[in-house]
């Protein structure tokens, strides 16, 4: 009995070091590639760090000056406003279209459902840069299919340049982002919908519940957890949208008129070497993301503890 207890204790003691050894490589790479830059960024956001610091001048400490500069810069507020609006429009459109397609997949005959699933999967699989070259080609002002189609329908879109005007630039970006994001939303919601039992719906119908009532009082409550997680992920992903905007800018539009938070940081940092300001905007984006993610992380932790 005593012998057994003592062996157990040694195993436990030896085991108690093991988990730390096991997480060490992951922790080390995270500290090097994320922890160190994060600390550097926090420090730099309180410094005046521009071109001369790039060439070795010491960076003077300026406290919250960078944050004050940003908070009083109308352009920063324009960029924040644009980013929030664009995020809301993309996430909203993606959710509505994704939910409608999920319902459609549930109701359509098998063959049609498989056709939808295959095309959604292919769209989802497209690497983002490859998708961007294709969309640039589709919206090409001279020989793109979109202008050809609209012109054939009798609309005045011959040689129309979509990327010149900021509003239509964002419309194109929205279409692309929604096209890319809908497959994930549609598949997740469809999977959730298949868990609603047909018998419950039938029983409700026999009790006289209308289609509208069945939708809002049975389907929506059952899929609500998935709905909220998917919406949250869309908001987080659309808030940080960078690649699509950057590549549409590359295709020929004025960056200043179309910047969102991501491209603005890029422009401040690598474009004009204003690392102090760029760091301050980055911190703002990080704080915003962490605040929104907290809810998602909580729901994932629940899974870890179950």
């Amino acid at each position: 009995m005593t012998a057994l207890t003592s062996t157990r204790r040694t195993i436990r003691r030896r085991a108690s070091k093991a988990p730390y050894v096991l997480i060490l490589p992951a922790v080390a790479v995270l500290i090097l590639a994320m922890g160190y830059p994060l600390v550097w960024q926090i420090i730099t956001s309180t410094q005046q760090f521009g071109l001369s610091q790039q060439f070795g001048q010491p960076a003077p400490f300026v406290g919250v000056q960078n944050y004050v500069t940003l908070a009083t810069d109308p352009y920063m507020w324009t960029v924040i406003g644009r980013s929030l609006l664009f995020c809301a429009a993309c996430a909203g459109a993606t959710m509505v279209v994704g939910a409608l397609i999920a319902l459609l997949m549930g109701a359509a005959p098998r063959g049609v459902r498989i056709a939808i699933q295959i095309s959604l999967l292919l769209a989802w699989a497209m690497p983002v840069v490859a998708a961007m070259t294709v969309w640039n080609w589709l919206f090409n002002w001279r020989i793109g299919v979109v202008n050809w189609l609209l012109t054939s329908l009798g609309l005045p879109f011959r040689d129309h340049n979509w990327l010149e005007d900021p509003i239509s630039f964002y419309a194109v970006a929205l279409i692309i982002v929604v096209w890319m994001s809908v497959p994930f939303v549609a598949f997740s919601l469809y999977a959730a919908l298949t868990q609603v039992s047909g018998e419950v719906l039938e029983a409700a119908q026999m009790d006289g519940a209308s289609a509208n009532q069945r939708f809002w009082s049975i389907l929506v409550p059952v899929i609500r957890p998935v709905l909220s997680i998917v919406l949250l992920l869309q908001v987080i992903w659309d808030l940080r949208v960078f690649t699509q905007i950057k590549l549409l800018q590359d295709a020929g539009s004025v960056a200043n008129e179309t910047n969102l938070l991501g491209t603005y940081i890029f422009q401040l940092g690598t474009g004009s070497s204003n690392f102090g300001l760029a760091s301050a905007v980055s911190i703002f984006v990080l704080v915003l993301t962490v605040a929104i993610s907290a809810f998602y992380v909580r729901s994932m932790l629940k899974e870890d503890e179950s």
Partner: protein
Amino acid sequence: MTPSTSSGTGLRRRRVKPRTIILSIVGILVALVWIFPVYWMVNSSLLSNVVLQDATPTFAPIGGSLANFFAVVGGGTFLPALGMSVVIAAIVVAFCLLFAFLAALAISRFRFRGRRGFVLAILFIQMLPAEGLFIAQYKLMSSIGLLNSVIGVSVLYVAAVVPFTIWMLRGFVAGIPLELEEAAMVDGLSRTQAFFRITFPLLAPGLIASGVYTFLQAWNEFTIALVVLPSDASQTLPLWLRGFIQASATHATDWGQVMAASTLVALPVIIFFLFVQGRMTSGLVSGAVKG
């Protein structure tokens, strides 16, 4: 063919079909809208520039050829970019899988002080946008002389992907009952032997799925590469593709070649993606389904 049969089918048709027909038409339209860009990429890649410059689009690659693909591959810039992407992807998959596997083992097989903090940290880090850190990562890489280097970008990629991979593998490891290992230990194997003979083989599907996920992330990544690989001599495939978009702003573009290039980049991704898709969806929302 008697009147009664025809009225019978007519009745059934009237009862069931109008709704089904409308749903089918809408469904097929949806499928067409989502597949069209992918189809258009492949279609254009097979057509010559002369055909593509025509004001009326050509909707099927009749009379097409693989000439664009040969031109792109022989163009001199594709192969170095491909090499860069393959090497980076291989390094990232190898290290990310190893690190994530060890950490997943720790959090699913041990209860230790700091475990909750570690899990919280990887969940939050997984959500951090690359755009929130890339300026600092650029400064880090330039200060240690790793701009434009395979090592530098690989380290950043491993760190970016390892949190989600740990999370994914944690699910797999937790799904294998500890009792299996214990039974093997009762039969005389050491803990390590039991793990490698019993648990590890059962983990193979999880490791493969995580490996494919990691590969896709490294292969498709654009934002970090844009910042820490500024030289034209060290482009990955996404940066190389971006060159075509930039050129199209000012130069006449051979869209057939651009689409061939995009097809070459997308092809391995589409194949691998179809392979892991199911697991990625369930990984991202499983918390919600269970919670």
